[in-house]
């Protein structure tokens, strides 16, 4: 046991003040300063979270536009909307944008906003790292899209297989752009993962023991661990690829002892957990939504949490099923078939828990629940085609066909985007203080559900008919026209549902019904504060005595007193029992994370053009980091 030292008790505490004085004091301490410098320097997890969410949705829109372009190109045989070269860039940009700039970041973004609120703390752990993470994500995304606008967009597919991505077959900068975009986004994701782990472990409200943690928070904790253990692999992959291209190393050069399958191993060791990095947060959202709209606690809390953890572990044992077509030893193939089927078990358990909750509850069919039901239908279909392709003989037949395209869009859009949009309807009132329109929401859902299925179901059949992925066109004799036209029509309907969503958001921001603190009568702590939450989240840190705190004691929130009102302070508690043990300062705003991100960006982009960027690019980063960590003499620093 470490020794602890208490400081003399001279400062003003929250129990010295009445409620209005306390709020005024806390706003003074925690608010984001006005002016552009203040905004750039903010470390408020809600401000950063909102930026993260908006940016990720902007990339969704960009990736979606590319999808529509591809569907227009493929809507009939031998169309000439996109040239073959541009088509290669477009599908690569679509996949890379959706995976690295939308799906993973948007899930992190919601966590950045909601995990601190749901565990009842005032800011995320390492808030400056959080600000840095956002800037790096933004700069990385802009770098990728800026390159695309200058005809240097990657054209090697979202998994950039060697030797196609090697210097020999890709002599331009396109593959370097892809590799460095990976580095940007993985740095951003790793940073958020560290913050989430520490926030959940150490900053939970008093009494929020392990079995009282909201399931969404559990899901984000598991996801954070997946990020910690999966992302290093792709960073090593992208770094070695860029080294091969820039300084003539031979990792993937067969003639000099390198090996192309090494790339696939490194990529998919990340790439398969990546699917769960996107899917597990979505299941966490579903658990929250199901409980709220079924009007009862979710059935099988322990089963769901253990399923999440089991999914996390199992997700690291599946990567080779992406490589069945590479001629693996039969024993290896069989093992990975078995593990791929095994992971359906915890996902299935969760689905049964949700169905049981809805069965036993009194479901209120509002828009968020509609999206959950849509998720269950679509995801189950995607899961079933997943079990099909887990089997080597089927996989060999449909590998690299539209069957696989259909499968992973059912899993990713059904499994992640539907819950995400449901969660957006659910949490929008908390973020903005206003409800999204229910009527537009229903239109949004039905257009999305119908459009999605018309758009993607025919791809299963096209795949079985032999249509390969990533072809920019096909000849009329193939007989794929009608199904492709149907698919494109569905795609346009699906895209329209997002236009409607954007309209709903803009409309409701101004005219939406006022939400109040807890418009859905939900049970978790984010609803115990105002909508939108004040800069300090909670005027006093809650005490949790029940898994569904707001249902346990309606209208009354037990809280702790005794925190400082002279400096930003968060309460740290023990990992398992959430017993408070330290009042730790939380960093104040700083411009250094932005400056560090700029220096890092110069380093990353410069190194594409000259290896010397590693030499001259390092001192500015080091200087910015020292500026970041050097105490500025504030109370937060000196305590």
């Amino acid at each position, binding site marked *: 046991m470490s020794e602890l030292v208490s400081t003399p008790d001279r400062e003003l505490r929250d129990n010295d003040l009445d409620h209005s004085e306390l709020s005024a004091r806390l706003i003074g301490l925690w608010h984001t300063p006005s002016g552009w410098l203040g905004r750039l320097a903010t470390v408020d997890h809600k401000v950063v979270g909102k930026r993260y969410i908006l940016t990720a949705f902007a990339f969704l829109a960009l990736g979606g536009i590319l999808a529509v372009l591809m569907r227009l190109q493929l809507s009939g045989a031998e169309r000439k909307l996109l040239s073959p070269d541009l088509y290669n860039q477009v599908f690569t940009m679509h996949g890379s944008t959706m995976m690295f700039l939308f799906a993973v970041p948007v899930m992190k973004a919601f966590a950045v906003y909601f995990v601190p609120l749901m565990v009842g703390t005032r800011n995320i752990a390492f808030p400056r790292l959080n600000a840095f993470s956002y800037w790096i994500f933004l700069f990385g995304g802009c770098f990728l899209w800026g390159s695309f606008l200058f005809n240097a967009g990657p054209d090697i597919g979202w998994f950039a297989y060697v030797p196609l991505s090697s210097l020999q077959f890709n002599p331009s900068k396109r593959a370097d752009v892809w590799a460095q975009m990976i580095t940007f986004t993985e740095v951003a994701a790793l940073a958020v993962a560290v913050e989430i782990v520490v926030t959940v472990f150490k900053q939970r409200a008093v009494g929020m023991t392990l079995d009282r943690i909201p399931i969404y928070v559990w899901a984000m904790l598991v996801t954070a661990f997946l990020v910690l253990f999966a992302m290093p692999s792709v960073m090593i992959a992208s770094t070695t690829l860029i080294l091969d291209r820039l300084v003539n190393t031979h990792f993937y050069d067969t003639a000099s002892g390198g090996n192309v399958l090494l790339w696939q191993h490194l990529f998919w060791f990340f790439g398969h957990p990546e699917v769960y990095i996107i899917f597990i947060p979505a299941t966490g959202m579903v658990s929250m939504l199901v409980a709220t709209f079924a009007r009862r606690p979710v059935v099988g809390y322990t089963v769901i949490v253990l399923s999440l953890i089991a999914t996390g572990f199992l997700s690291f044992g599946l990567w080779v099923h992406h490589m069945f077509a590479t001629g693996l030893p039969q024993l290896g193939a069989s093992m990975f078939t078995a593990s791929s089927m095994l992971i359906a078990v915890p996902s299935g358990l969760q689905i049964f828990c949700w169905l049981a909750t809805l069965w036993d509850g009194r479901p209120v069919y509002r828009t968020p629940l509609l999206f959950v039901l849509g998720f269950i239908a679509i995801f189950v279909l995607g899961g079933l085609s997943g079990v099909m392709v887990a089997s080597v003989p089927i996989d060999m037949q449909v590998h690299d066909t539209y069957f696989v395209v259909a499968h992973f869009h059912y899993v990713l859009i059904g499994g992640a985007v539907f819950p995400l949009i449901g969660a957006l309807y659910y949490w929008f009132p908390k973020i903005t203080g206003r409800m999204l329109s229910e009527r537009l929401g229903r239109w949004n859902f039905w257009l999305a559900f119908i459009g999605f299925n018309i758009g993607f179901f025919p791809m299963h059949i096209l795949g079985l008919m032999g249509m390969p992925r990533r072809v920019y066109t096909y000849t009329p004799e193939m007989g794929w026209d009608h199904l492709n036209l149907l698919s494109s029509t569905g795609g346009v309907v699906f895209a329209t549902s997002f236009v409607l969503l954007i309209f709903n958001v803009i409309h409701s921001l101004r005219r939406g019904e006022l939400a109040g603190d807890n418009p859905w009568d939900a049970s978790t702590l984010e609803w115990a*504060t105002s909508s939108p939450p004040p800069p300090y989240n909670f005027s006093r840190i809650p005490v949790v005595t029940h898994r569904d705190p707001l249902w346990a004691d309606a209208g009354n929130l037990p809280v702790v007193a005794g925190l400082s009102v002279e400096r930003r302070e968060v309460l740290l508690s023990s990992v398992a029992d959430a017993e408070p043990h330290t009042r730790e300062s939380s960093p104040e705003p700083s411009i250094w994370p932005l400056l560090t991100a700029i220096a890092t960006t110069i380093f990353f982009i410069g190194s594409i053009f000259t290896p010397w960027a590693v030499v001259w690019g390092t001192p500015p980063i080091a200087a910015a980091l020292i500026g970041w960590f050097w105490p500025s003499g504030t109370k937060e620093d000196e305590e």
Partner: protein
Amino acid sequence: MRQTIVRSVNDLPTYGFGSQSGPWWGAMAFIALEGMGFAVAIAAYLYLYAVNPKWPISSAPPDLWPGTLETAIFLLSVIPNELTNRVAHRLDLRGVRIGLIVMSVIGVGLLVVRGFSFAHLNTRWDLDAYGSVVWFVLGLHTTHLATDVVDTIVLTILMFTRHATARRFSDVTDNAFYWNFVVIAWLPLYLLLDWIPRL
């Protein structure tokens, strides 16, 4: 929502050591992800080792002395590191200053020896896949080492300023904790780089 105060945290301290501090858990998370990075790099090395009939492919194994010297220094550095950790727990500013200076000097010394390690790898990164992967693995650990050394030097300077308040002692213990990871991470790399090519 009505609030009922049920508990006071008036008496809690404003910082803690080890698992009672936020930064310690942050260091743990970074150790996890960096450890994973090393594990993947080792796996990549072993993969290339397994698929190539001859290893090293077309050069001699590294000379043993720089890596062995480093390993000895790393292992011995655990002692002053632990002493620094202990004086920091006692809030002994003078002891911490001395300990941090010693650790900074050791870190810089290791970086110098690391230069010799590169020079005695007996291969180049662009010679063949063996050369690429040994330069990569050693480069990865050098980045890791250099970062920690710079961090230690900055912390040393900090402890000579007015900012050397009580909470900084907790930072010193976290720094010491992290150094142990730098040492532990090196040991398998030493075996990998210097001994696998001799099998």
